[in-house]
Each structure stands twice: as structure tokens, then as C-alpha cells.
């Protein structure tokens, strides 16, 4: 039985007050809060077995190495990867995508080869490819969206051709909430001989994701959006694709042998983890995965559908609100981006903060999407496993109070907002 109240007890930050009000944290698409078990794991690591991994022969080094590699195994199982060696630890989703752009695309692709992205992508799945295109002459193609914020799949089919070497799209949009049909898209990409990278930053934390079921070749995601620490993320890749790949960053840990003339590379996955890795945060990612498994991703997904449906219903009742993305909760993640009349999203964000309500306002690292939508910025509320219906009520109430506030103040001058 899913109990949001029971879950909330595990997240100490949710007890916090902000501006004299109980925190209502609706910025989960930016980063999630952490359960006590994750916080404890960090303390325990630093307090009991902090040591460098894969090097020392002493007890602490061995304990740290075991915990670090155990975390890799947990993360690998969590996404259905065939082996822990398929999971390369990175700093975050952004670094994971950059890893692929540098280690694979830059060495493999040639001028005129094509990469298909979409207009809804986060900057992390656009900018690395811009850098690549500038340096190599690789051509970027973009899938457009329709009026409901879904990818134009007919256009996608038309974009695919024998020059297409990679398709890279987000699984769930951090603005529109759209869930993209990445399984079908991967199949279509493979049909023309292209590889498929899925940005799983917004899907892996919120719904069951199985990389083998999706048959994607690569997936990038971050710990911090799935209850784990910041500073650690991963690139999943199929073994047969990662194995022949040359390194990303060079340095300690990633080598087999170094002479003055040359270096040879370590095995997977360490070949891609140069230098002392982020051991503590990797170690504390494991209890986050355990927590999610315990609650159940199916349950979290259902909870978010219910909340999103409720939020969409309530927010559509607020005058002058325009919501972006698919109309049905089932078709989207727990993200609601919107604008509200003449009230700029930044002014709205400041006002809601006075009620202790944390939302995001801006372009959410998706400037091309906002340009496509014809708005400079949007406000965004995003939910997670611990978000309650009462919090959605407070949020919608906050919207109405904010409208009233601006109307009242403007009314004193005779201006209309």
C-alpha cells in the first residue's frame, strides 16, 4: 500500500519551513530531495571507510572499493543493464552525454554524418552536439513537436536515412512532461543502422525503465534526480559498443600501462573513469536505488499520474493559465509547465516562495523549446514520490493568491494586470 505520508517521514528536509510556511517542494525535475538513508550513507562513508578505490591494499581501501562497485551493480540492475560493466560513472547526465560525444562520436563520425535530436531537448543534449558539429562537420537534424507537445514521428521517419549515425532524444521532457516513444524510435534508428542514446534524466527516477526492453544503445541519467546525491551520474552503454571505445578523459585509474611513449587502456568500466572518482556520492547512490526499489517504480509512476491529473484539473480552473504539453496525465511525467496571464514566471516564482512554495521559473535549460513554444520562459511545478495532493492544493491556492496580489496592487494605481 503506497503511503505518501510514510515516505515523507524519510525525508528530513520536508519538515523545513520557508518564509514562515511549511516547505512545499515542487522543483523535483530540477533535483529531488534525499531520504535519511542516503544522508546516512554519506556520513558513514566519510566517518568509517573513506579511502581511495582500486588502489590501496588496506582494509579501508577494500571496503571503499567494494561499496563503490556494489553501487555500480545496484544502478546497473535498476535500469536492467546486462552487466555492471555497462555502467560508467560520470558527474551527471550532462557529462554522460559529453562522454559519448567525445569518446565515440568525435572519433567515429565524419563530416556529413547526421545526428537526429529534437526541439524539446535539454541543453545537455544539444550543446555537446553543437560542439561536435562545429569541430567535425557532423550535421544535426531536429524533430519538431506538434501542438500537444509530442514529437512529430512522421517527420522523424523522414529524417532517418543512411547518413544518420545517432538518434539522441530525451525519454521524458523536463518542460512539457511528454513521454517520448523511445522504444519505437530506437527500432527505427536501428533500421537505418543508427545508434540510439536516450536521455533518461527525467524517466529513470520516475517510472520503470529497462534499457534492454527499450533496446537503446546508450542511456544517460543522474543520481540527484532520483533521491541520490549530486555529483554522480551514469552513462549506460551496450557492452559490445563500449568495449571497443577509446577513452574520454585521461589520467590515473583509466590506464593499464603507461610508458613515456604511450599508454594502454584499462578494462570497462574503469577506462572511462579517469582520476579519483566521486566515491562518496556513488556509494550513497546505492541506498537511493534501494529506496526506489522498495517503494516501487510502478507505484511512484501511478502516484505521479494521479497527482498530475489532479494538478492539471485544478490549474486549468485558474483564470489566464496556459499549460504546455500533452493534455492527458497518462501521457506525461510529473511535470506541469505553464504561464499565467501577464505575470512573468520569475515574479510568480518569487511570490510563491513567500508562501514556502518552491517552483522553477525560466527556460529550464530548454531555450530552443521555449522559442518553439513562442514564450521566453515558463513556470514549472514538478512532483515526486513524496508530493501530496494537499501540496498541489497549496500550490494552486498560491497561484490564485498571487493573481489577487498583483491585481490588488495594480488596482491601487488604476493599472490592470
Amino acid at each position: 500500500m503506497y503511503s505518501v505520508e510514510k515516505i515523507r517521514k524519510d525525508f528530513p528536509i520536508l519538515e523545513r519551513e520557508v518564509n514562515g510556511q511549511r516547505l512545499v517542494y515542487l522543483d523535483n525535475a530540477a533535483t529531488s530531495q534525499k531520504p535519511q538513508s542516503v544522508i546516512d550513507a554519506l556520513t558513514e562513508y566519510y566517518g568509517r571507510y573513506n579511502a581511495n578505490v582500486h588502489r590501496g591494499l588496506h582494509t579501508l581501501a577494500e571496503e571503499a572499493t567494494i561499496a563503490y562497485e556494489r553501487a555500480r551493480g545496484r544502478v546497473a540492475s535498476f535500469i536492467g543493464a546486462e552487466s555492471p560493466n555497462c555502467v560508467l560513472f560520470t558527474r551527471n547526465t550532462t557529462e554522460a552525454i559529453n562522454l559519448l560525444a567525445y569518446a565515440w562520436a568525435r572519433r567515429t563520425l565524419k563530416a556529413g554524418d547526421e545526428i537526429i535530436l529534437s526541439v524539446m531537448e535539454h541543453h545537455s543534449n544539444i550543446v555537446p552536439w553543437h560542439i561536435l558539429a562545429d569541430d567535425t562537420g557532423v550535421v544535426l537534424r531536429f524533430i519538431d513537436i506538434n501542438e500537444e507537445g509530442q514529437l512529430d514521428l512522421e517527420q522523424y521517419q523522414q529524417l532517418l536515412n543512411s547518413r544518420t549515425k545517432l538518434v539522441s532524444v530525451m525519454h521524458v521532457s523536463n518542460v512539457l512532461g511528454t513521454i517520448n516513444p523511445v522504444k519505437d524510435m530506437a527500432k527505427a534508428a536501428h533500421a537505418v543502422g543508427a545508434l540510439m542514446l536516450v536521455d533518461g534524466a527525467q524517466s529513470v527516477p520516475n517510472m520503470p525503465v529497462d534499457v534492454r526492453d527499450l533496446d537503446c544503445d546508450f542511456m544517460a541519467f543522474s543520481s540527484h534526480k532520483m533521491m541520490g546525491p549530486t555529483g554522480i551520474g551514469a552513462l549506460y552503454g551496450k557492452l559490445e559498443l563500449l568495449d571497443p571505445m577509446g577513452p574520454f578523459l585521461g589520467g590515473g585509474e583509466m590506464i593499464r600501462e603507461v610508458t613515456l611513449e604511450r599508454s594502454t587502456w584499462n578494462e570497462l568500466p574503469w577506462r572511462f573513469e579517469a582520476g579519483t572518482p566521486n566515491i562518496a556520492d556513488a556509494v550513497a547512490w546505492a541506498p537511493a536505488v534501494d529506496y526506489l526499489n522498495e517503494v516501487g517504480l510502478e507505484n511512484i509512476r501511478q502516484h505521479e499520474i494521479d497527482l498530475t491529473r489532479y494538478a492539471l484539473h485544478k490549474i486549468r480552473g485558474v483564470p489566464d493559465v496556459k499549460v504546455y504539453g500533452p493534455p492527458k496525465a497518462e501521457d506525461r511525467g510529473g511535470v506541469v509547465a505553464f504561464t499565467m496571464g501577464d505575470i512573468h514566471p520569475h515574479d510568480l516564482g518569487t511570490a510563491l516562495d513567500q508562501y514556502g512554495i518552491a517552483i522553477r521559473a525560466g527556460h529550464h535549460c530548454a531555450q530552443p523549446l521555449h522559442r518553439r513554444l513562442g514564450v521566453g520562459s515558463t513556470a514549472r511545478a514538478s512532483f515526486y514520490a513524496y508530493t501530496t495532493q494537499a501540496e498541489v492544493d497549496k500550490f494552486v491556492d498560491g497561484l490564485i493568491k498571487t493573481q489577487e496580489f498583483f491585481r490588488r496592487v495594480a488596482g491601487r494605481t488604476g493599472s490592470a494586470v
Partner: protein
Amino acid sequence: MSLDALEALYKEVILDHYQNPRNTDPLPDPSVATEGVNPVCGDQVHLELLVQNGQIMGVSLHGKGCAISQSSASMMTEAVQGMELDTADGLAKAFRDYMTGIDDTPARDLGDLEVLDGVRKFPVRVKCATLGWNTLQEALKEYRAGQKSGKLVIEDGERG
């Protein structure tokens, strides 16, 4: 904080400037035209100045963005009308130093601009209040360098 702070931030006159920005008509023959953009939050202003005999004889500004950025810029157009260039430059600096907290009290009499003092309690919004003023200083710099136009891209603020 709470609602008192909100009342202190969004005073009537600020929302009035937001809703009814002043001096928006383009100048027929501006001495200098400068874009000010905060790309990370999307706020932008287009500022035109007519300079004659070392004085600002005409100001035009239009833009889009949040209430703080647009109202502060609109108030700026009224404040610097007729000012000597150095005086306007000094006012911009005094305003910015007051907003960012470098000065606890304004180095110069800010007059009506003091309605924006509520912004000081919202550090993340200071860049909104200073956009128009930084653009003014950029325009003055360009004018003095003999340029007719330019662009200022604000480098601080929300990243994404």
C-alpha cells in the same frame, strides 16, 4: 518575510511602470542604440539615447521580461532625461551599488527610484533591477567610443 516582503517588492508604482512603461516610442535619430539581454532568464531591453551637448536629450526603451526588470528600466528612462552623461553614469553606479548591497545607503539621492529598495531583500532579483541601468552604462560607453550601437549580455544570473 512573507507577504510584507512581497508588498515591499512589488509596490504600486513598480507595477504601474510594468503595465505602462514610459518612453517607449523609438527615437527618429538616436545617437546610440544598445541591446541589454540577460540570456539566462530572457529579460531584454532595447535602449536608445539622443545625446546633445553632453546631455541626454531623448530616451527610448522597450523590452520584455519580469516586472522588476521592466519597471526599473522604465523608471530609468524618466530619471536620466536631460541629465549630463557623467551624472547619468554616476546615478547608474549609485543605483547598482545600492541594489547589490555594496552601499547600505545610496551614494546619491535616488529620488523615486528608492521604491525599488524592496529588491535588496531578494538577491536573485537584483540582476533584474539593474538590467536597464547596466544597459544605460553600456550605451554611454559606446557613445563615448564613437559607436552607434552595441549589445550587453549579462553574464550573471540563473544558468541553464
